[in-house]
């Protein structure tokens, strides 16, 4: 590794202004300074002094915050990419399907290259005697406690306080479907109006897993199917289109 040069922070912010653009693997990103004052997110890596793109997508960055904010003193660069295959990341909420029981753990498919483990004790109020009531094929909403490229991912259904905090076995109907991962990021982004717009007219429950799986439940089968369709379709829509589509959907459901 060559020694990385220390760079003048002013220089950095001056360089990191260009707008988002589409990049492909192997592209150099000259505006990223050859120093450690930036954080390289997914889709970027350093080779010598240069930052190189590794995944195709839209290059984005969060500029260096003003010096008053001491908490995040680094600019962040990353590539927004489209993928279907999930790679586990620590702390993310996912929706998994139980494959089997193995000893005191469940083997759970979360779409990664190997199944995750979920201990019987990782449920709210679980004890040695009081085991969670779940069968193979059941769906769980859980959080990744361990996610590393060299280890089996591990899930928990409790938060740091031992409370379920919305996690656990998803029961009582509803439907699970799969979308590409960027649709999930879009749904959860603060700018996206989809869930809010739909929620204004159709009451529903939803659990969104970062692994591309979404669970929804409405009052009726018909509404659930429509909602699932609306979410899948919204992939290529902007907020105005989403609003128009929602209105149409609500009308159709009302029987017009």
């Amino acid at each position: 590794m060559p020694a990385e040069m220390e760079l003048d922070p002013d220089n950095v912010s001056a360089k990191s202004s260009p707008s988002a653009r589409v990049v492909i693997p192997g592209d150099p990103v000259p505006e990223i300074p050859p120093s450690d004052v930036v954080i390289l997110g997914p889709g970027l890596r350093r080779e010598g002094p240069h930052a190189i793109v590794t995944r195709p997508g839209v290059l984005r960055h969060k500029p260096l915050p003003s010096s008053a904010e001491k908490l995040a003193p680094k600019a962040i660069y990353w590539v927004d990419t489209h993928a279907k295959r999930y790679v586990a990341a620590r702390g993310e909420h996912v929706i998994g399907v139980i494959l089997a029981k193995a000893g005191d753990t469940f083997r759970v498919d979360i779409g990664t290259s190997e199944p995750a483990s979920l201990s019987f004790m990782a449920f709210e109020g679980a004890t040695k005697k009081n085991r969670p009531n779940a069968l193979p094929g059941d769906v769980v909403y859980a959080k990744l406690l361990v996610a590393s490229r060299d280890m089996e991912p591990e899930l928990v259904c409790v938060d740091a306080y031992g409370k379920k905090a919305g996690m656990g076995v998803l029961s009582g109907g509803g439907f699970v479907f799969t979308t590409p991962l960027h649709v999930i990021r879009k749904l959860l982004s603060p700018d996206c109006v989809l869930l809010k717009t739909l929620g204004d007219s159709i009451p529903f429950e939803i659990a969104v897993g970062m692994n591309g799986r979404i669970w929804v439940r409405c009052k009726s089968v018909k509404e659930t199917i429509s909602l699932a369709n609306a979410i899948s379709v919204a992939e290529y829509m902007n907020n105005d289109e989403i609003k128009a589509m929602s209105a149409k959907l609500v009308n159709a459901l009302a029987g017009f």
Partner: protein
Amino acid sequence: MAGYELLSEQNLRLDGRKADELRRIQCKLGVFGQADGSAYLEQGNTKVLAAVYGPHEIYRHGAGGASRPTLTATSNEQAVINCQYSAAVFSSGERKRRPRGDRKSQEMSMHLRQTFQAAIKTELYPRSQIDIYVEILQADGGNYCACVNAATLALIDAGIPMKDYVCACTASLMNDRPVVDINNLESTTGGPELTVAVMAKSGEIVLLEMSQRFHVDHLEKVMDLAMEGCQNIYHILDKEVRAHVSKRGSLLGWEAT
């Protein structure tokens, strides 16, 4: 068709049977000591041995494997049925190159599995496996049917709970007249062949197969005759089972009622 007059003017077939007459069926339960259940069945010149092992724990490398992708819940809720169909190399006119593993044998194994998965009360044996092996010793048409009938007997001999007897029978169409239980000559020279496996008492169809072509309008009468054949086979099998059980029972010292 093809030079032969399959149905004579007196409505008799080449082997002297009437159109709705089955071939002679002879069967015997419990022919092997090694297997948990076994049976031997002759249907005309078609001769089959069937053996059943199980229920036992699941072996991962069964002959066959699940026909559909293994569903997450299945093996935990019900028994896995493993079937293997094999026809001895000397069973037919030309020597077969290999007894099993060719496409027709694989298909036959698959159909047998599907049939018995429906008939056996698989939910009673979760996480278990039941093996059904059938060996055709001599083939003269209606192989699938003979296998199903023999396997039903073997399963009964093994004491495995079933919803009903499964009986199978073939039927064909000659000069626009339906004929039942066709033999090898009739099936190779004649027209279509319809195979039906039914639950004997409820009359519901478990498997229906047809090859060669005929018009939809004829389907009903051919199917009717095949199902009637199944009923007749059922009576023959049932008689043999009752005789077998009472014989065994009397040996154990209880009186057959």
